[in-house]
């Protein structure tokens, strides 16, 4: 997400204060609630990312517990259940192009993690 879009989104004031960034161990993910939705938030060397926590293949809410890394240069999380890889930036599933996760805008302000809805 570009700086501009981020700024625009913040102005729409639909951002939610989730937690202290310290609560997500670097290199791992954690789950959060966003209204009735569950979001998986990842604290990586390349920044912070958020996708839906729901794993479309197993039906369980577990993506936050997957291993993060990169495959062919794309940042991904691997489902802990059946190991499909999802792009952290686009939500796209590398193994099955027809599946895409919902992604969320996310930012860190004063060491607090904030999340917004939408692409």
């Amino acid at each position, binding site marked *: 997400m570009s700086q501009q879009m981020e700024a625009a989104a913040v102005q729409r004031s639909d951002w939610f204060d*989730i937690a202290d960034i310290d609560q997500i161990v670097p*290199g791992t993910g*954690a*789950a959060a609630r966003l209204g009735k939705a*569950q979001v998986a938030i990842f604290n990586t060397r390349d920044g912070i990312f958020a996708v839906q926590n729901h794993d479309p293949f197993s039906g369980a809410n577990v993506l936050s517990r997957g291993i993060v890394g990169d495959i062919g240069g794309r940042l*991904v999380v691997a489902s*802990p259940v059946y190991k499909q890889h999802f792009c952290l930036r686009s939500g796209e599933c590398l193994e099955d192009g027809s599946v895409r996760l919902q992604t969320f805008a996310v930012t860190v302000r004063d060491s607090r993690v904030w999340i917004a809805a939408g692409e």
Partner: protein
Amino acid sequence: MQTKQLVVIGNGMVGQRFLEELVAMDQDFQITVFCEEPCPAYDRVQLSSWFSGATDEDLALTDLAFFERHGVRLIIGEAAATIDRAERKVSGNKGTVVDYDVLVLASGSYPFVPPIPGHDREACFVYRTLEDLRQIKAAAEGCRRGVVIGGGLLGLEAAKALKDLGLTTDVIEFAPQLMAVQLDARGGQLLREKIEALGVNVHTSKATQRIEAGDKARHRLVFADGELETDMVVFSAGIRPQDKLARDCGLTIGDRGGVVIDDHCMTSDPAIFAIGEVALWQSRIFGLVAPGYDMARKLAGHLCDQGEPFSGADMSTKLKLLGVEVGSIGDAHGNTEGSRVCVVEDSIKGFYKKLVINQDATRLLGAVLVGDTSDYDMLLQYALNGLDLPESPVSLILPSDNKPVLGVDALPAQAQICSCNNVSKGALCQAIESGCMTIGALKTETRASATCGGCATLVKQVLDAELKRRGVEVNDHICEHFAYSRQGLYHLVRVNKIRSFDELLESHGTGRGCDICKPAVASILASCWNDYVLDPKHVGLQDTNDNFLANLQKDGSYSVVPRIPGGEITPEKLLVLGQVAQKYDLYTKITGGQRVDLFGARVEQLPLIWRDLVDAGFESGHAYGKALRTVKSCVGSTWCRYGVQDSVSMAIYVEERYRGLRSPHKLKMAVSGCTRECAEAQSKDVGVIATEKGWNLYVCGNGGMRPRHAELFASDLDDETLIRYIDRFLMFYIRTADRLQRTSIWRDNLEGGLEYLQDVIINDSLGIAAELEAQMQGVIDTYVCEWKRTIEDPVALQRFRPFLNDDNPDEQIVYVRERGQKRPARAEEKDKVELVEVV
């Protein structure tokens, strides 16, 4: 035209190969096979491996489906009894009568039993069929001493079997030396010394005159110059062609037996052919399988009008007898006129090598190798292909680092690489060309190395050389982030004392890592340094289950498996398990590993459950880790009327010793209290079976997707040696295996096989035994229960909250009840809770 009736008598190694060759051709025979043995063809060459754990199925060369698929009628368990050549009929000994147009005798040979008085007493056996082995094994239980009559190749194999069965073993040879056919006197002498050093007693120039009842043992063997008492006798005094049927119907038979055949395997009756060990070609019987296979191929071709003649065969052999390497090539005795010899003998290192060379020292005619056969493959190629010998032929057998190398590149395309299956270098190259890039693929395609396995090294060399020539790089990189194999990474971590993934990535990798390399490195780090796996610098590397120290279930909940060492549990602890399960409403099941699994725990419940379990004295069972799982035990000598050792105590000791040990894949062990094997130790990575004298150690078995029987690794060990071997074995596996490679697959890929492994672990051939033991001790000394540590670690505990911003559990984990316990609701049972757009 009417289909011709083809009848085969005998479904041994050669008969079976003949069928395979024939059905692969364009032919139209109606085939019937008389198979005297109770099962279709099996691998007689590997027969002895039955004693070290190979099963009937492992040895099978075919199955009933083969016969069905090709419309071949197989008459199992019925021997052909008569041949009526006038009527062209074969009658079986159970009444079956079959007409033939073409008859193939593939009845092999039978062991010769010298007609000495008493040869038919009880517990006197021969060594030829699976049935023979079964009888020997059964009889061995009540025996202490066994004698093999006959010191040839098969006799020594039988001696090894008796020794492995725990008998004091003697070999009686009529001739003045062992293996008189293949070795010269000096070679035979060295072989004898080596075998005696292994504890087998050898008696040469001894003729047994009679066998009678003994005083201290069942039998007494009486010689001209003495006697010997024994409980069991195995005759291995040579083989005789099984030619009775042919004799009875008047076919031409050689003076010393064998059905006479011509170059097309045809007997004196043009409708009858003979192949394999029953056939006599130019007054020779070939007692090896390779010439028989060659006859089978040539005959199949001949019957389909593509006849190439049979032109004799090479009788060279390379063997390991009782652990002693022996090789014999061509004219080993130097019978060729004018031949000369070069001999190298080293009585300190214990080897003897002899070359037999033609008069002008340009060609190799034969060789004898005892104690070291590393030059065999090369020498055989010189002999078979008539290659020019180097200036100084003896340099070929001198122990030296700059010995003239005969690279596979130097071999002509027609050079025979696999003699059992007559595969040339050219044929291998062709198969590689058509896409066989692995040993396995080559083996399936060409059969090279599929019989005695003696040519495996050479086949691999041809493959490697070809791949290299084609510029194919054999890549064993673990993933795109590290240009190393798992073994390479292990080495880097160990040698450079690397303590974290980031450190390793920075120094030796690229990118960010992935779900392949991260857990693999986590496992290596744990095997080397045994740091806490949920430490912030390791937690992001852990695979699904290690990540929360529990097994993830399909609905996102977890299961909990506390360790129950050896499967022994007090009633008090059993009650605690029940109480904890009740308190958290966990589905409870007894596992296949002698413990209890509690299912349906939500992530935030895990620390609470474990606090209760740890308080009651339970520890993590590592059901989630690529680590030691369970050590299964049977009840053993404490209660069982048959037990000879305390298997429960040993199982508990072993489980507590190796608990928490992270490895390339999971590890399972078992300890049985006697040979009845109720703990199924032979299906484990490490299996221990009690004997009267100690413990037998088995390794590299598993159940699961591709079951493999464990192999006997060492016998009658005391407690201390047993543990020392297991320490070394496990650490060597951890050091060298690939990612997610269980001990079975690792072992199958280990060059040199079981013997190599024994050499490394028992004889310390790599000089690393002390290091392996020290590394194991390091892991043992640093063990702490991961769950005990976790429930006391506030930082680690934070990760068990269901949500960063909410402590209410995931409402989408829904259960229904069945048979009095909960189970995950199926999709249709769940209230459909859709992922809702935010706000």
